[in-house]
């Protein structure tokens, strides 16, 4: 990697960290296409850098969100049992499933999610949520302090089983493709557990680093973590993520949702395109 391109990688990584931390996605989905399509970096090196980006966004954002108590630690830890199991499974079955199939299935799911989110775009906070009995037993329902409204908002957690299933799949995809699959995690919490959007985004941020760490060690040993690519990505994303968390706390839940829909739609198209063109 040339010196000038390494500096360019550093600069766009700041932007990726900013967007990633606001939306609760790892930035891998932003970094990987720019590295491969834009700069001709081999796909496995780009995925390695993507994982580093995921861990940095996650840790950088979690520092702020955990302290400000937007992320739900118990919920995150409980769902991490599913994502990490999924990540390990993904690493095991990686050789068995064709990436083409994966890309297309993933792309279709994302497109459907974008549509679902678009339908409920007017929702600011979930209403009349019936708490799942398991959620009560696991003390998942909680509250968060919303800086925009200056008040503490309590919430209940629904749909534990379908959300747990979605988390497992998110973990498998993470292990297979080296992404944080944050958008998938946010979806599971938003659609099934019916959490406030900001809580979903912050908790997804908190969880992603752990899921990515499970597969990052493998990539390091395989020689896919190139310091001259992953180094500037990690540093740039960290700077962006620190700024992003400050911005997100002051946004409306609706605004975060509005920003999320085009990203989801774009990712869906990109995934389907990749699946279509892959041999």
């Amino acid at each position: 990697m040339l010196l000038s391109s390494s500096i360019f990688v550093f600069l766009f990584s700041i932007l990726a960290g900013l967007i990633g931390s606001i939306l609760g996605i790892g930035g891998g989905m932003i970094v990987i296409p720019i590295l491969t399509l834009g700069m001709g970096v081999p796909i496995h090196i780009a995925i390695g850098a993507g994982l580093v980006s995921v861990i940095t966004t996650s840790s950088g954002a979690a520092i702020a969100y955990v302290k400000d108590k937007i992320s739900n630690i118990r919920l995150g830890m409980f769902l991490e049992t599913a994502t990490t199991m999924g990540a390990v499974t993904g690493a095991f079955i990686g050789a068995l499933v064709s990436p083409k199939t994966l890309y297309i299935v993933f792309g279709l799911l994302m497109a459907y999610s974008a549509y679902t989110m678009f339908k409920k775009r007017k929702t600011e906070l979930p209403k009349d949520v019936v708490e799942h009995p398991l959620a009560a037993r696991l003390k998942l329902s909680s509250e968060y302090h919303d800086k925009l409204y200056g008040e503490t908002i309590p919430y209940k957690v629904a749909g534990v089983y379908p959300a747990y299933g979605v988390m497992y799949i998110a973990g498998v995809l993470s292990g297979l493709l080296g992404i944080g699959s944050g958008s998938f995690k946010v979806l599971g919490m938003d659609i099934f557990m019916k959490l406030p959007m900001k809580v979903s985004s912050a908790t997804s941020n908190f969880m992603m680093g752990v899921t990515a760490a499970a597969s990052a060690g493998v990539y390091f040993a395989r020689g896919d973590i190139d310091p001259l690519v992953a180094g500037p990505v990690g540093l740039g994303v960290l700077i962006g993520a620190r700024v992003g968390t400050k911005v997100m706390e002051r946004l409306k839940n609706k605004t975060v949702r509005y920003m999320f829909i085009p990203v989801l739609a774009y990712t869906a198209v990109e995934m389907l395109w990749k699946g279509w063109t892959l041999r």
Partner: protein
Amino acid sequence: MKTRNEIDNEVLISLSLKVGVYTSAIIVAIGLALFYSSGHSGYAPGVFPTSLYAVYLGLVVGKPAAIVSLGLYLLILTPVFRVAASVFLFFFEKDYLYTAITLFVLGILLFGLFFGAAF
């Protein structure tokens, strides 16, 4: 309402993440600064250390890419440390259900780290 213990717990997790992330970021920054100023990574183009031992060999002779790799490896370990810290915090909170849940997550993570290279 949250107990005092729980609040301390969250601040501690946040602090442990902060230490891990900033330590690794500083190491990465030092390595990159050396690379940007000298224009050499210390390795042939496309070559870089891929094991802890190779990182160590590069570090003792001060190769910039090895310094960056050390920082990145610490970064990868940060979430693992965070989970390990949470095990103790839940335990001291006497929340045994969540001690078990967190211990399970840590177990899977360590399994992935140790057996990962075999895949």
